[in-house]
């Protein structure tokens, strides 16, 4: 299984891999926002965490569509389906590798973008922490969409549409944890714990559903 993890990591940093494109998209989208809402610094700081979260959500989801499609096109998926190692484990490891290659960079890039959004240090730290806790959940949910769209000629947008509604709880608790950290009276830990619980929940449910979809889309 470690071999699968490292193979996927290698693939996403090799030429044509998607790791960098996701971060670039994230940065582009987030840096477009101030042009839209205007350079009102207080407003930016106010909506900053939400924008970072939404940008990360979109960047994660839009890069996910090839997760299984590439495997299917060159026949690797067939071999993975045949093994006695549970497919759900394979899916889980692939998600983990995908997150390390394209979710983690988003987390790393978020502080810089936070500065652009005029967020203070506390908010930036909290955003990073919640992104770290929450983006894996997005990857796991997204895997379901990717598995569903594995045989589609153009999965990209469709995966996002299918998955975004399911990813909303992650967004809600992620952002509310950040706001809780910034505004004093509200406690920071409970939403963060919920976020982590959601991530754990989807770490089970996501691969399960994705494996089911993959099994049934074989042809």
């Amino acid at each position, binding site marked *: 299984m470690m071999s699968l993890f490292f193979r996927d990591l290698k693939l996403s940093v090799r030429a044509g891999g998607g790791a960098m494109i996701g971060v670039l998209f994230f940065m582009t989208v987030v840096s477009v926002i101030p042009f839209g809402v205007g350079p009102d610094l207080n407003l930016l700081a106010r909506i900053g965490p939400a924008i970072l979260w939404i940008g990360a959500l979109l960047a994660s989801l839009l890069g996910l569509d090839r997760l299984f499609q590439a495997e299917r096109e060159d026949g690797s998926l067939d071999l993975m389906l045949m093994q006695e190692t549970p497919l759900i484990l394979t899916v889980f490891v692939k998600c983990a590798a995908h997150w390390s290659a394209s979710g983690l960079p988003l987390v790393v890039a978020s502080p810089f973008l936070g500065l652009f959004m005029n967020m203070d240090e506390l908010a930036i730290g909290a955003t990073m922490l919640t992104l770290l806790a929450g983006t894996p959940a997005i990857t796991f949910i997204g895997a*379901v*969409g990717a*598995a*569903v*769209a594995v*045989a*589609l*000629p*153009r999965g990209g947008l*469709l995966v996002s*549409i*299918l998955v*975004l*509604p*399911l990813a*909303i709880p992650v967004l809600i608790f992620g952002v509310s944890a950040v706001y809780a950290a910034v505004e004093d009276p509200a406690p920071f830990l409970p939403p963060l714990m919920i976020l982590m619980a959601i991530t754990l929940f989807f770490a089970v*449910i996501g691969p399960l*559903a994705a494996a*089911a*979809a993959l099994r*049934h*889309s074989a*042809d």
Partner: protein
Amino acid sequence: MSENSLAIRKFSDLANPTRFLALADRVLPWLAALTVLFFAAGLWLSFTTEGDYQQGETVRIMYVHVPSAWLSMMCYTVMAISALGTLVWRHPLADVSAKAAAPIGASFTFLALVTGSLWGKPMWGTWWVWDARLTSVFVLFLMYLGLMALNRAMEDPARSARVSAVLVLVGFVNIPIIKFSVEWWNTLHQPASVMRLGGPTIDPEFLWPLMIMAIAFTLLFFTLHIAAMRNEIWRRRVTSLRRQVARNAGRESLAP
């Protein structure tokens, strides 16, 4: 060296859909008539009963809003059951049922949203708030549309069936959220003046037309659903016949 010759007997397990078509032909006229009947009664009741002293005329919106909201959830439940049927029992009609239900469910959800908004404007002074129930209904609407887009994007119904079934089941989480959101998530809940009507405390003055309309909507749903299933079966037959035509056209000219 052994020779296993392979012969194919022509057979079809489409008996089931065929039987369904016959059944639909018989049932549909009755269902349709019943639907019209209930709608007539429901509409008459909903315009002749008294208005509420607080909400005035707008209470009449309830008679379309609540049934369509219920139907939007029931339709998804039907789809989820169908999805189970596809995945677990591999019933040939289950997938047809799920696919036919999606546009109907989307329509009812749309109706619930619009009538809710039309009720919200005079009651709350705004068309929309990001209250948990409203939001989760909107998410349901988006999920219906997403499923429709998915069904359209896949050419081969046999393959899209099981795959979208998985998605339907995953999305079913939303239904209890809609149902119980009022209790769970109180951030921006609707004002008490409205909730006065909620639950079993509803005045029988309003209960009757509401129930009749609810039955009428349910009947309407089943009528439309069965008809749409029939259409879907026909559509699949047309597709497979056309493929057959294409194959035969190749064959004829193959042997000049």
